[in-house]
């Protein structure tokens, strides 16, 4: 049976975790390639969805780019 940790690498998640530490932890657990920014608009849960990714400690620029849009562009067929 597949390890649950591997299964998570086939699922995608939004980044609605509200804090830089939360983004850092989520990326460490599931991989930055599985994450896409989310805001919950129009519900005012967060106004810092972009900032918590940009400021997440221990996350590379490439991973931040992927989370901010790269991953979603691929999945949704968006052009640069």
């Amino acid at each position, binding site marked *: 049976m597949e390890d649950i940790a591997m299964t998570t690498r086939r699922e995608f998640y939004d980044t609605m975790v*509200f*804090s830089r530490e939360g983004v850092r932890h989520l990326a460490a657990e599931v991989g930055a390639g599985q994450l896409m920014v989310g805001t919950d608009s129009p519900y*005012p849960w967060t106004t810092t969805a972009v900032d918590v990714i940009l400021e997440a400690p221990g996350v590379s620029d490439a991973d931040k780019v992927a989370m901010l849009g790269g991953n979603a562009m691929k999945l949704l067929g968006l052009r640069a």
Partner: protein
Amino acid sequence: MAEAVFVSCGGAGAPQGRRREVVVSGKRVKTVDVHAHCAVPAAMALMGRKLETEALLMADTRERLRAMDAQGIDVEALSINPYWYGADREVATELIRIQNETLAEICAAQPDRFVAFASVALQHPDLAAEQLEQGVKRYGLRGAGLGGSVEGRELSDPTFHPFWAKAEALGVLVFIHPQGTTELDRTGRLGGNGLLTNTIGNPLETTIALSHLIFEGTLDRFPGLKICAAHGGGYLPSYAARSNAVQTTFPHRMTGTLKKRPTEYLRQLYFDSIVFTPEALRHLAAEAGPGHIVMGTDYPFPWTQTSVDHILGTPELSDADKVAMLGGTAMGLLGIKG
């Protein structure tokens, strides 16, 4: 970080075998396991309860000590998961008396290896307060073990305030261990593969219990309360910041005023270290503070047999953090001498 393993003979009553001695920064560290289960059959008989596994028995502690020695656990803080919250006052009085007396005898027989949390009948809050005081003062027990709810009542329910007041006044640690989200069990949503009733049901109940203690103001009312939540506090520390966000997202759903932001209460609580990976422990330390994590094993249930190595092998922790998690913080909370 330097860790060495020494071999020595066991203490009085210990089995023949190798006792691992944990060393950090060249110093021997006394290690304490705050999450260790046991059972007292004479008390269970009053409720017609059967033993889940013989490994919970304390009549012969050789196998338990062998497991402690192999892993490098010096002291276990024993607790008994509540099964008596449905008992009437008379039965609950006798059951808890038997149980706390027996726990005291177990600890007295091997005081260098065992301390214990008192059992209390929280369904009768005034009685529970008496039982805690008696447990601490007469029997030398070090705190109380609670479930995550009491027959459908949340731990934040005002009827429990007399118990929290007593625990705060005594300055002793209260260990909260969940018993699953039994309300969900009935719907079947936690059925199927993976024992979800326990795997996620237990941490979910802890998440609910702690959230109520925060949002209902219980932790404001009793700021000196020392609470340790099992299983790393369930899911609360993993998604802590959402509890802050709700204050601005749905302010009209926040009745009353909390003295602190919800995530700040994590630093008023303690958590056991049963989160399995270095990444999870690093994150728990980031959210709660490294001084708020105390080692747990869940013995005799084999969820993990590497609790000591888990802490030693988490690279982001300082040696001081590791010493605190392995035993230093628990020794202070439980009154264990060095």
